[in-house]
């Protein structure tokens, strides 16, 4: 629809990033990737467009109706990637050379057709990491500590990571005597944190009693990682494996020196069906949504032909930007403005600009002759320090 009314608009859920915001975002992504590279993570980049069936095979992080779909000229269905993990699983399944483990990281735009939220348009940027190959608490704690490191590198001071485990869901459901369909309903209620609905549901299914109440009560627990040991004695049998795993992870986080960033919260469950083990969500004051999350997904790679455990996380870059203090801008540039059209002066200006730029100083060069007043106005407008070249030396601010 190229009519006049739309010519200045962008589609719903898309937005332009102007200076200085665009630069701020680029620097944030770079900072995080550089920090993760210090942990031995290598960057991977996958196409924006994937075959629809590839993405749905991955039980993607977005429902099929949240995908932006389009038709390839040969008739096959394509979709814009809604996240990076399924695409990375496809690459690892098909063409990754060598042996695991692989430590991979990415920063890319993803697309989801969903209601626009604070800090999340329909196109948004994720930066994340995947540790593919090893199972166990060592890999999980590495990824969790890396998430902390990434957030700190970004400059976020105040955040909490809620640590949970998908085994809570399967453990609870395994002890409830429910038919398959009712199981699906209970799963939905637990994932939605519809505790009022869950209570009604249990009453209707005749599952009242103190034992079942205390099971549901487990879901609303939240405690320090250090309390895990104490609480695991009191946990029901169906949750013992979960507690054992979380304890090992917590011990390693302690060794990493970052356990103060964590709270164990058994209600933390991720919607993506591919998660199998520990899962986590990152929260910060002032933002009503998680700014990132992740977890262990041991059965996803199998769907792409390489049966191999994996764990990872992604951060929402726009949400992270919203939660960071305004922060420092790039260094203010210098404005070199010509006072006349003389050839000699132009050469001196060019020489000076070259010299300053080679020292890493940003320079705006205006070779067309300017009145001093106009140059000053422009410097104010661009946030630049003004240097008018007058032949012998530097003038201005």
């Amino acid at each position, binding site marked *: 629809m190229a009519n006049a009314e739309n010519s200045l608009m962008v589609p719903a859920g898309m937005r332009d990033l102007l200076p200085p915001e665009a630069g701020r975002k680029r620097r944030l992504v770079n900072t995080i990737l550089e920090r993760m590279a210090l942990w031995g993570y290598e960057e991977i980049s996958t196409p924006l467009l994937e075959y629809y069936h590839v993405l749905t095979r991955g039980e993607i992080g977005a429902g099929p109706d949240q995908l932006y779909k389009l038709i390839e000229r040969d008739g096959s269905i394509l979709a814009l990637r809604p996240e990076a993990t399924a695409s990375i699983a496809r690459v690892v399944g098909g063409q990754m050379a060598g042996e695991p483990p692989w430590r991979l990281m990415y920063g890319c735009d993803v697309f989801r057709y969903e209601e626009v939220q*604070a800090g999340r348009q329909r196109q948004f940027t994720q930066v994340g990491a995947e540790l593919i190959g090893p199972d166990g608490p060592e890999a999980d704690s590495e990824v969790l500590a890396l998430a902390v490191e990434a957030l700190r590198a970004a400059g976020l001071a105040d955040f909490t990571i809620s640590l949970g485990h998908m085994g809570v869901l399967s453990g609870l459901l395994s002890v409830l005597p429910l038919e398959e369909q009712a199981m699906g309903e209970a799963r939905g209620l637990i994932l939605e*944190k519809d505790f009022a609905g869950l209570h009604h549901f249990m009453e209707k299914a005749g599952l009242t009693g103190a034992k079942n109440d205390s099971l549901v009560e487990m879901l609303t627990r939240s405690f320090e990682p250090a309390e895990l040991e104490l609480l695991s004695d009191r946990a029901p049998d169906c949750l013992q494996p979960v507690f054992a795993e979380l304890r090992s992870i917590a011990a390693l986080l302690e060794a990493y020196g970052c356990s103060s960033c964590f*709270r164990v919260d058994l209600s933390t469950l991720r919607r993506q069906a591919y998660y199998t083990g520990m899962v986590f969500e990152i929260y910060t*004051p*002032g933002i009503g949504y*998680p700014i990132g999350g992740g977890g262990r997904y041991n059965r996803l790679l199998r769907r792409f032909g390489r049966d191999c455990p994996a764990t990872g996380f992604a951060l929402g870059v726009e949400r992270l930007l919203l939660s960071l203090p305004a922060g420092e801008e790039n260094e203010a540039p210098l404005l070199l403005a010509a006072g006349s059209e003389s050839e000699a002066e132009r050469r001196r200006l060019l020489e000076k600009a070259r010299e300053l730029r080679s020292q890493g100083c940003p320079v705006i060069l205006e070779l067309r002759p300017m009145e001093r007043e106009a140059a000053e106005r422009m410097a104010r407008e661009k946030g630049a320090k003004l240097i008018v070249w007058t032949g012998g030396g530097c003038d201005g601010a």
Partner: protein
Amino acid sequence: MEHREYRYRLTIALPKGKLFRPAVELLGKAGLRTGHLSDEARTLIFNDEENEVRFIICRPTDIPTYVEHGASDLGVVGKDSIIEAGKNLYELLDLKFGYCRFVAAAPRESLSPEGFYPWKPGVRVATKFPAVAGEYLKKKGIQGEIIKLHGNVELAPRVGLSELIVDIVSTGKTLQENDLVPLEEIGQASARLVVNRASYRLKAEDINRLLSRIKESI
């Protein structure tokens, strides 16, 4: 974010209208200072300095939005508004007041002598709850048209705007007065305590303390 006042431990959104009084009473019983709250004053923000709680008063249908975005940590809102808003919230508690039912209703004269409604494709349904009404038609397998209204839905069939209505009913008096007959109950609703996802994690202690006091008061 800058305008948030961190000196309050919790912000609670309360709905104007019929859920307001019972919500205020319940929170009062749970130990919060709610005596000065009113949904008729011009003031939309009230503070309970003693408990460091701030109350905001808003339209019932806006409560899910305030809570989803984290402008309010907690909210009291009817299940009907939650379903219709389709927001990402956690429902912590059924507060057991404000009971009502979603029903589909038709004018008495449109029913067959045996009392059946002759369903036809293309049926027009007037409602304040397009999501609920749409889901209802889908379940019945009937194609129809949803007409969104903002109130007094019972008027629509009388003036030929729609054949049916889907609305919430507490006593059924309004239906009766407009000669409308309930065809079917679609679902039930009552007031719920909802919480923002992030607040639930970041303010777990404050929220759980309040939650257990409310549970004791229900």
